């Protein structure tokens, strides 16, 4: 058994197409890939919201904000 469908290279390359593993499962792989991508955005939205909420709480200290503004 070979995950790419070829157990040896005793083939005529003119007859060979795809050589990646798990041919036939492309749609499933893409679904997994899309889930990874969408999941990444979800994590990022949640974390950035937390980060900005914390930053907003710190921002009540006007002296600190002024220091940041002056630092450029």
């Amino acid at each position, binding site marked *: 058994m070979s*995950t790419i469908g070829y*157990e040896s290279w005793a083939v005529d390359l003119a007859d060979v197409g795809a050589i990646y*593993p*798990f041919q036939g499962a492309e749609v499933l792989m893409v679904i997994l890939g899309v889930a990874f991508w969408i999941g990444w955005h979800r994590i990022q939205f949640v974390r950035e919201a937390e980060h900005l909420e914390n930053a907003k709480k710190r921002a009540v200290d006007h002296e600190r904000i002024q220091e940041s503004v002056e630092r450029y």
Partner: protein
Amino acid sequence: MDGNLNALTTVFTEFYYWVTVVFMFLIHVGFCMYEVGASRRRNHMHTLMKNVMVIPLVTVTFFFFGWWIYWAFPMFPFFGGLDLEAGAANLPWAETMGPNAADRITGVFWAAFLLFSWTAASIVSGSVIERIRSSALWVHAVLIGSVWWIIDAAWGWHYGGWMVKYLGYHDAYASGVIHAIAGGYALGVIMVLGPRIGKFASDGTPRDIPPHNPWMLTIGVFLIYTGFWGFYAACNVPIISPEGIDGQITGTTWTATNIYLAPTSLSGITFNFLMSLSGGLMAAYVMSRGDAFWTFSGGLAGVITASAGNDLYHPVQAMLIAAVGVVVVYKLHFWVERKFKLDDAVGAVAVHGYSGVVGLIISGFVLWGVPSSPYEGYAAINPVGQILGAVIMFFVLGFLPGYIVAKLQASAGVLRIPEEVELEGLDYAEHHAYEEAKQEIIEADKAHLASKIAPAE
């Protein structure tokens, strides 16, 4: 070069490798920038020179004996003697090791391998900054660049290597043969070398030592990415006929191949380079909560994890494998740092070593049963062969030699710089001429100003 087609193929191949070599120079530029950016101001010239001198030292030794090792060692010492016949054309005094109208490939092929050697040495160089003696590092550079990595290449990155033949070892873009070995070697050295002063608090908590120039670091990593692209191309044979391979492939269709002369395509590896880079960047951003340097390094770690099988993976597989690798590597880095109090200044052991090992192991499962070679009688790719391969690369040829040589250097008192110098900074201790010259010219200018130019009324 008989016939126009042969002539074109030869000249195309010659030019192809030449271009990859120029691209790969950017890897070293990137490593230099990264190391200098990561070091503190008082050490940056020393850090730079330490890595710059890797270039000539590894080059000349790779000419003198490294290249010969690659051709002579594929079965040596466990499954046969030295292949003196193949080695003969690659000895430094062979006619093919110079301008030769009958051989247009040896020089560019030698150079492509040499640039890999610089990379192996440079990976070690980054982890030991700010406390190793340059003389000690340069011995390690020659050993990893012109001896140990090229032995592993002969065994596992050669169409006739014993690891390929008997273990089914597969490592198309060098997860193990460059990255795992160099990461393992670096680990062996830093275990003996010890951390930089101040790296760990008295209770053992690690402290961050911030880079003196984060922008230099950023450009450095991006240059490494660019050079890595050239490295991928350099790992392929760009065009060869079934007759030229002389294996089991039938018919007359020409192909690009990996280093084992098994079919792949430049197009396929371009998909996979970019998808694994992306998977690595995305995973590292999440894991490190947006830390810039871990994110950049994660891109690199992602490519390295997927590299063993990037000649064959589907692009989505490359992306996901890269992401998995980065998660493991990130966790492992901080666990090892806390547990063993190791100071890997640029994360080289993790980004190169652990990624390489994880990548080899994953590829054994994903490519299970795939022919490792176009020749008859070779083992197919399998998890056991890949795991054994990872152990050989990281531990046997990487960690052990690094640890032993560093121990010898430490016992001779030539490994680490004195504490006083480490605190004062290597640039002031060793590059005092610059400071003196600067002071002298400032004094001269001030004297000229005082004696020749009248102050404004």
